[in-house]
């Protein structure tokens, strides 16, 4: 059990990273920001799920998916369908031709809920769908691709194509999906208003907890033999295959896990932002999510979260002042990261933390109970660090 805990926390180093991250998410940001800004952070943190999934899939597995938006979107749509049905009760939709169905269905002359909407009347089935539908979709794509040994650039292009197809499909089927507007006007979950201030805080914290939980699960995976095999496969796939492993099964599995994580992010997005639209599925958002992971460092689970936060803060700031420049800046940022910091923020941290022996000092502060004592201990290290 002890070994398992230390595995999950990633040793002392990993624990420190996790504590700092939790402190920022759960204490610093809620205290320092007004509710509007905190809502934005909450939204960014749902993207962080996708960035984390890409660390697992791309960083460790070497499988670059440029279509993670598919799974973010599917998770988000599953949740939105439930909330929309609840928002479309007969009383509030009584001006429609057919009361009791979502407004966009009514506009498109539908008179009853389509069959695939029916399960989303139940919250339990909806939560199951959020977890299962994207993973199942990933399984089908993964099975078709990896069993045929499609990989690398071809896989990336195919995921892009699927993201595009799904967007077009959703936009085209307005009566069933809400079309280009997406699913909007979401109000309550089982009668609980998701729009008022207290629910916003609650959802923000639930999102944060799920994100930390995801990190722990991912850490378990990458420290297990499975994780070692991922690294081995990235390096020498043939050698793994000729060591008696069915490589495709491992790839399919990690692709499904990544889809599941992205879907949780999508569902939390819908809950916090209050709508879901095809603009979160397509090519551009899928590539942006890769950029978040790249900026954070594609081998660092925690780095990916900082990457998502930082790039999105940047976007918000710049697009408030120079909206037309943002896309160029984002492209430039990606090129800069790939060329100069291939390991992203996490790589920079590693480099400078080693230089100033930050980690050692942190460890001393965390391992000794009293902060005052820790300071005293840390001071000599500081001087030696400066000398070195």
């Amino acid at each position, binding site marked *: 059990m002890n070994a398992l805990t230390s595995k999950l926390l990633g040793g002392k180093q990993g624990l420190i990273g996790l504590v700092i991250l939790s402190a920022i998410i759960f204490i610093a940001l809620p205290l320092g920001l007004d509710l509007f800004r905190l809502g934005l952070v909450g939204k960014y943190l749902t993207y962080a799920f996708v960035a984390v999934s890409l660390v697992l899939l791309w960083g460790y597995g070497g499988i670059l998916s440029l279509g993670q938006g598919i799974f973010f979107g599917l998770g988000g749509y599953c949740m939105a369908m439930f909330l929309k049905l609840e928002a479309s009760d007969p009383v509030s939709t009584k001006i429609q031709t057919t009361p009791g169905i979502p407004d966009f269905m009514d506009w498109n002359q539908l008179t009853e809920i389509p069959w695939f909407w029916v399960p989303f009347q139940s919250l339990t089935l909806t939560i199951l769908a959020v977890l299962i539908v994207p993973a199942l979709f990933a399984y089908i794509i993964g099975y078709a691709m990896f069993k045929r040994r499609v990989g690398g650039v071809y896989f990336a292009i195919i995921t892009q194509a699927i993201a595009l197809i799904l967007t077009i499909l959703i936009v085209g089927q307005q009566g069933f999906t809400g079309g280009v507007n997406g699913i909007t006007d979401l109000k309550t979950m089982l009668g609980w208003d998701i729009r008022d201030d207290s629910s916003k805080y609650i959802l923000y914290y639930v999102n944060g907890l799920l994100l930390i939980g995801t990190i722990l699960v991912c850490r378990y995976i990458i420290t297990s*033999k499975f994780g*070692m095999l991922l690294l081995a496969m*990235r390096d*020498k796939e*043939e050698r793994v295959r*000729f060591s*008696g492993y*069915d490589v495709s099964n491992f790839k399919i599995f990690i692709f499904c896990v990544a889809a599941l994580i992205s879907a949780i992010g999508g569902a939390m997005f819908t809950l916090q932002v209050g709508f879901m639209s095809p603009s979160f599925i397509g090519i551009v958002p899928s590539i942006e999510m890769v950029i978040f992971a790249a900026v954070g460092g594609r081998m660092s689970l925690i780095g990916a979260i900082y990457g998502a936060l930082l790039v999105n803060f940047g976007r918000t700031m710049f697009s408030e002042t120079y909206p037309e420049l943002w896309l160029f800046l984002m492209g430039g940022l990606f090129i800069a990261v790939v060329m100069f910091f291939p390991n992203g923020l996490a790589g920079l941290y590693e480099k400078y933390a080693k230089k100033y022996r930050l980690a050692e000092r942190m460890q001393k502060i965390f391992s000794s109970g009293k902060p005052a004592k820790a300071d005293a201990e840390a001071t000599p290290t500081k001087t030696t660090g400066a000398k070195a």
Partner: protein
Amino acid sequence: MSNTDFVLAIEDLTVSFDGFKAVDALTLYVDRNELRVVIGPNGAGKTTVLDLICGKTKSTSGSIKFKNRELTTLSEHEIVRAGVGRKFQTPSIYENLSVYQNLEVSYPKGRGVWGSLLFKSTDDVVNSVHRVAKEIMLEEHLDMEAALLSHGQKQWLEIGMLLMQDPELLMLDEPVAGMSAKERDQTADLLNRICKNRSVVVIEHDMEFVKKIAHKVTVLHQGKILAEGTMDNVQKDEKVIEVYLGH
């Protein structure tokens, strides 16, 4: 095809790439505990034969039986699990992992997705890693990143990764390519040690090395067997001198 006592029985094996027969009606038997060396000029089909046995290339016709089990219909990982290990020509190791991890990851337990997630490094695993590391002379480098090993050590590590799986048939493609004279001698000793309880098939060009290890030699030429027998007999064979050893 009949059942045999041979560990490996290749009969009438042919593979053709767009009409070019890289291996042409090859029949080859390998005994238990035998160390067989396959030699031949470039393009003779030596590596292709190994590719066919381990499933990397699918045969056009013919049969490959390992302990009377047909291999041509199995997929690569099933062939490995049946007990056939193969070392590639260029050292094929996981450069990002340590020597210890390279060996550990090759341990033949936890080979499924769930198995690997729940895999625990038990005493058996640790002992196997240390035993094999000692065998391949890398015991002192267990914590080293595999990328930092010398070329010869990488070759040994890959052999070690196969030994972790304890295969009954071990196939090595040019194991001493790029090694120093001393490393070659050490490798010859290593091969002589590890062929005790298993059959080994080696492809090699270095005749001095072949002499040290071979129980029997097969000479391939244009996808067919040119000669087979002890090293001395093969070296005296006029056809072999003509196409390969001669000039």
